[in-house]
C-alpha cells in the first residue's frame, strides 16, 4: 500500500462539542458499556457452559490473531497464508506422532516457523510485497500439501495429543495457551530488541534502515514469530480434532485480521500490541456469543463482525 500520509484527516469520527482527541475514548467507553449491558441482559451468558466454550473457541482463533499482530505491526499488513500454514502444520504434526508427542510438537512448530520464515525472508530480503507473497504461499502450500498427502487428510489413531484437550485448575488448556501466547507475544514485542525494531520498521521503514536497524533480519524474525503462534494454534486444533487436514485453517485468516483491527491496532503498522489484539478477540467472541444466545443465526455473526470492524476503523482513523 502506498504511504498516503494525509495530514488533514487523522481522526475519523467527529462529535460536535467534544474535543477532537476525546472522541475515540468517548465512543469506546460507550461501546464498552453497551457490551457490558448486552452481556448483563443476556440470559445464560455467565453460565459456565457458555463461558467455557466461548473462551475455548476464542483461544484457537486468538493464537492466529496474535500471529497476525506481528505481521501487521511490522508494517506488512496481513498474511493470507496463516490459515493454510496452520492446516499444513496439523498434517505434519499428525504424520510425525509416531516419533512421540513432544518431538512431533516440536517438529510441527519448527515446520510452521519455517514456512512463515521463508515468507518473511522473501519479504524482508527482497522487499517483495507481503500481501502478494502471502497469496503465492497460500497457493503453494495447498498445492504442495495435496501433492504430498495424495490429497488426503491424516487421521492417526494415536491419542497422545489428548493432553492438550484437558484442563488445568479448571481452565481449558487452549485458554491457558492463548493467555501464555499473548503474554509471550507482548513480551517479545516490547521487551526485546527484535520486537521494538519490528515496530519501528512498521512505523517508518526507511527511517529504520537509516538508523542501522537490520530490517531484513527483523522482518524474517517477525514472520518466524508469527509461525510460532500459528503452530501453537495448529497443535491445539489438531489435538481437538485428532486429525491433520487442509480444512482446519479455513477462514482463520479473516477472523484473525478482524480481531487485529477490532483490537485497535493500526493496519498500516507501527502502532498496537498483542494485548490489544487479545481485546479484539475477546470483543468479537462476546458479540458473537451474545448474538447466538439471542437466537441469531451464524450468518448474522458475519454481518455483526463486519459492522464492528467498520465501526472500530471509523473510530480510530488513520495514524494520528
Amino acid at each position, binding site marked *: 500500500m502506498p504511504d498516503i500520509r494525509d495530514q488533514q484527516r487523522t481522526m475519523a469520527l467527529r462529535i460536535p462539542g467534544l474535543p477532537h482527541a476525546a472522541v475515540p475514548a468517548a465512543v469506546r467507553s460507550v461501546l464498552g458499556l453497551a457490551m457490558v449491558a448486552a452481556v448483563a441482559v443476556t440470559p445464560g451468558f455467565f453460565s459456565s457452559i457458555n463461558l467455557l466454550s466461548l473462551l475455548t473457541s476464542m483461544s484457537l482463533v486468538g493464537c492466529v490473531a496474535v500471529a497476525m499482530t506481528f505481521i501487521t505491526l511490522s508494517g506488512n499488513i496481513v498474511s493470507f497464508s496463516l490459515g493454510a500454514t496452520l492446516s499444513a502444520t496439523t498434517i505434519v504434526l499428525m504424520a510425525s506422532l509416531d516419533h512421540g508427542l513432544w518431538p512431533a510438537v516440536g517438529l510441527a512448530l519448527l515446520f510452521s516457523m519455517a514456512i512463515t520464515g521463508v515468507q518473511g525472508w522473501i519479504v524482508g530480503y527482497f522487499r517483495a510485497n507481503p500481501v502478494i507473497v502471502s497469496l503465492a504461499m497460500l497457493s503453494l502450500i495447498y498445492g504442495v500439501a495435496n501433492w504430498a498427502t495424495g490429497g488426503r487428510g491424516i487421521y492417526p489413531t494415536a491419542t497422545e495429543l489428548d493432553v492438550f484437550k484437558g484442563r488445568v485448575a479448571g481452565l481449558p488448556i487452549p485458554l491457558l495457551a492463548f493467555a501464555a501466547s499473548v503474554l509471550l507475544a507482548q513480551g517479545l514485542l516490547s521487551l526485546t530488541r527484535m520486537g521494538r525494531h519490528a515496530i519501528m520498521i512498521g512505523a517508518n521503514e526507511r527511517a529504520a534502515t537509516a538508523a542501522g536497524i537490520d530490517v531484513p533480519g527483523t522482518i524474517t524474525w517477525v514472520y518466524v514469530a508469527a509461525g510460532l503462534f500459528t503452530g501453537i494454534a495448529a497443535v491445539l486444533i489438531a489435538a481437538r480434532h485428532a486429525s491433520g487436514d487442509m480444512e482446519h485453517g479455513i477462514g482463520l485468516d479473516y477472523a484473525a485480521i478482524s480481531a487485529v*483491527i477490532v483490537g485497535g491496532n493500526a493496519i498500516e503498522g507501527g502502532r498496537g500490541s498483542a494485548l490489544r489484539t487479545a481485546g479484539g478477540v475477546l470483543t468479537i467472541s462476546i458479540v458473537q456469543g451474545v448474538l447466538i444466545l439471542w437466537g441469531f443465526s451464524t*450468518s448474522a455473526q458475519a454481518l455483526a463482525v463486519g459492522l464492528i470492524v*467498520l465501526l472500530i476503523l471509523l473510530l480510530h482513523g488513520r495514524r494520528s
Partner: protein
Amino acid sequence: MTPISAVARPFCVLLAVFVAFALLDAEQGRFLSVATAFSVMQLFATIGPLALALGLVMIAGEFDLSIGGAMSLAGCVAVLLGADHPALGIAAAVLLGALLGAAQAIAMVRTGISSIGVTLAGLLICSGLAYMLTGNTTIGYDRIEVATAVNAPILGVLSMRSLTAVAIFVILGAGFAVSRLGRDLVATGSGRAAARTAGVPVDLMLIGTFAVSGMLVALSGSLLSYGLAAASPIALSDALVPATVAAIIGGVSLSGGKGSPVGIAGGALVFCLLRSGLISLGVKPYLHDIAIGGLLLTVAFLDARGLEASLYRLARTGERVLGRGTR
C-alpha cells in the same frame, strides 16, 4: 503514460504460456483447439471484469478484499429480481455494486482509513447480507433459456458473457488512454497528497473508482449467476486470488500508480489460459495451485523493491567465493 514495456510484459508472458502449452500438448489437439479458446474466453468473462475492478482500485493505490462477497451478493440480487426481466436484475445488481463500492470509498476518504480494513468489513457485511437475502440456500434461476443464451458460442470462441467482458475492456481501456481520468487515476495512486495539491479531485476519483469497480464486480457476478442458472450466498466462484493474480501479472502494482486496463486484460488472459490450458491437458489439480503460486511468487520477486540490491549482493558474494576458490 504507461511505458510500453510495462504493457508488453503480460503479453510476453501470454505468448510464453501459449507456446509452453502448445509444446506440452505435442499435437494431441487437447490444447490447440477452438474449444480451448472458447473456454479461455469463458473464464475471461468471469475473471476479466474482476481483475479490472481490482486492478483499477490497485492503480489508485488501494486494495479491495470485498470483491468475492460483492460478487455473490450481486448474483443473488440479480437472480432474485431478474426472474421476469433479466435486464432488470442486472441493472439492480449493478446499481447495488456501485453503491457498495461508493459507500466503502466514502468511508475511506471521509476518515482516511485504509482500504484493506474497510473492504474487509465490506466483505463480511456483503456475505452476511447474501446469507440473509437467500435464507442460506442456493437459489435457482428458472430461465434456462437465459442461461443458455449468455453462454452460447458466438463466432466459435465468444459468448454474450465474454463479449460483454471484452466490451468493458475496450471502453474502459480507451477511456483510460485518451481521457484525463486515466492520468488522474494514476496520479491518485502514485502520489496521493501530491495529486491533491495539484488539483486532482482525489476523493472523487477514489469514490468513482470504487463505484466503477463495484459495478464491474456486480456485472460479472450477475452474468455468472445467470449463466449457471443459480445464485448462492457462498460465492459461486473463487474471486480474490484469480483477480489479484491477473491484475499483478497485468503490470499493476500493489503500491499503486502503475498499470492500465490493456495490461490487466493481458494479465487476465494469462491467468485464464493457464487455468484452461492445465485443465485441457488434464493435469493433476495440485499442479494448478503450484503453477499459480509459482507465477505469483515470480511476479512478487520481479516487482520486489530490493531485488536489484539483493542480486548485487549475491553476485558480490559469489565473486568472493569463486575468487577464493581459484586462488
